[in-house]
């Protein structure tokens, strides 16, 4: 009964971040004092189950540091992290297996994030082998199931990463992240290394998987057209601070902060009207 109570109390919030901070210390030289870099300066947000939060910003704005803290790779300097309504003890050695299972990450570069000497079957089976005492036969079965889920087949089980294209590798990285049945998936620029046509396939796959497993996504990207397509909520980061945070429609229809407006203005437009205007401008300039 009490468990039920707490469930309703936390409501439908999957991830909550309260005033989280991360500082990095640069060691000084003989005559140089130590320098502290404030990578993330107090960010807060709440994310509902089954929703997608997109984090946008330029390189060095702290968006990947934030992702590393949510996935427990980096320890926050200050602030609280609540997953599934439970406060996470992020000190090294204090993390529970259960927490680690709930949160998984997919990295940007599918060429760098897979071990070139490991077969795909072993890539997918490894999380199970480490975290559970599942027999090998069962692990193999689960890996094959997951391959099918992400649009690959059992024939890929014994192949090595170099035998796959970039889009297929990103599917494998997603499959590996899903092996532990996570609730929250952090996607660090998952499609920015992919071609347009492959990007569309991977985005469709992510949407399908979200529906099937009721996954919550934290989607990090610098591509606003992708963000507009996939996100429910959008957060814009600039120099370690969240300068804009709201639902997708709020942010896109009425950007408040200067940086967000700059970002929107800088994004190339591919609609016919803009091209027509540009071609006309150029014609006028050459005629003059």
């Amino acid at each position, binding site marked *: 009964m009490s468990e039920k109570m707490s469930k309703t109390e936390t409501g439908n919030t999957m991830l909550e971040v309260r005033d989280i901070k991360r500082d990095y210390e640069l060691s000084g030289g003989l005559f140089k004092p130590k320098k502290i870099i404030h990578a993330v300066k107090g960010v807060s947000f709440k994310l509902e189950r089954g929703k997608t939060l997109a984090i946008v910003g*330029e*390189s060095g704005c702290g968006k990947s540091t934030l992702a590393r803290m949510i996935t427990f790779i980096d320890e926050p300097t200050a602030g609280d992290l609540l997953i599934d309504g439970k406060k996470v003890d992020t000190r090294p050695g204090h993390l529970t297996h259960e927490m680690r299972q709930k949160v998984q990450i997919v990295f940007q570069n599918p060429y760098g994030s897979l071990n070139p000497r490991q077969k795909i079957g072993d890539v997918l089976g490894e999380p199970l082998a480490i975290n559970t005492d599942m027999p090998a036969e069962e692990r193999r079965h689960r890996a094959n199931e997951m391959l099918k889920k992400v649009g690959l087949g059992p024939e890929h089980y014994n192949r090595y990463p170099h035998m796959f294209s*970039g889009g297929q590798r990103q599917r494998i990285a997603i499959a590996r992240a899903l092996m532990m049945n996570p609730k929250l998936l952090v996607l660090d620029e998952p499609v920015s290394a992919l*071609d*347009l*046509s*492959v*990007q*569309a*396939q991977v*985005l*469709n796959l992510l*949407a399908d998987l979200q529906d099937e497993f009721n996954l919550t996504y934290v989607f990090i990207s*610098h*591509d*606003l*057209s*992708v963000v*507009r*397509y*996939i996100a429910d909520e959008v957060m814009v980061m600039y120099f370690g601070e969240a300068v804009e945070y709201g639902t997708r429609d709020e942010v896109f229809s009425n950007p408040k902060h200067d940086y967000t407006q*700059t*970002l929107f*203005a*800088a*994004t*190339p*437009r*591919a*609609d*016919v009207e*803009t*091209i*027509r205007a*540009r*071609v006309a401008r*150029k014609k006028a*300039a050459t005629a003059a």
Partner: protein
Amino acid sequence: MALLQIDNLTVEFETATGWFRAVDGVSMSVEKGEVLAIVGESGSGKSVAMLAVMGLLPWTAKITADRMLFEGRDIQGISPTDRRELIGKDIAMIFQEPIASLNPCFTVGFQIEEVLRIHLGLDKKARRERAIELFRQVGLPNPEERLGSFPHQMSGGQCQRVMIAIAIACNPKLLIADEPTTALDVTIQKQILDLIMALQAKNGMGLIMITHDMGVVAETADRVVVQYKGRKMEEADVLSLFENPKSNYTKALLAALPENATGDRLTTVSAFFDGNPEPAPEAHA
């Protein structure tokens, strides 16, 4: 006379399974002062075709073409000495990875002055003055101090500005930009594209913009060549390409843009080909 004219260019590489055709019978031309965009996915041969023009492919590559003319001059059978005089002076190229394409062992000042010394034969004082002027032109702050910087001391956007300064140092007639902004942030991309386009308009260069980003095409090109698997799918001026694409492949590419999504799903290129004929190369006129 076209600035650069290529007829029926084919580039092949020998692999374990036989000759692989990276570029298959591609023809294109660029006029003086024109911006041509070559768009395609990775592996479509868009960079390889331009590397063949620059003579930067390894000797193992087999390059054949009916014609390859720069200002009416044959650049296919050109001697290495003549090519060295042409490349970097009349034809210049900007590459994708700005930090990787500068030499990490030398200051950026040395690297830009090298171009001025070899191609223009300027003396030390004139070289320094011209280098400062070029750095100012590409919008690098404190150009005098910047000359003494090494590439690792600068950001990606700054390195790309240095690359552009080196490329335009000798007022080239043709500039080839191979994905010049792919490695950069959106806001920096905008600055670099604006810079390239301003320089192009000012100097009246021919510009070939190689890219996979339809947004970049829309913002820069006069004319567009769409490549797929080494073959030319379509060539059109930029407005008709976006307004009324002829080739199936171009239609599929435009449909895959997230901003053109209808409903919850994106149209993928392969889904587009279901029920449609496989993309066929443009018929030769």
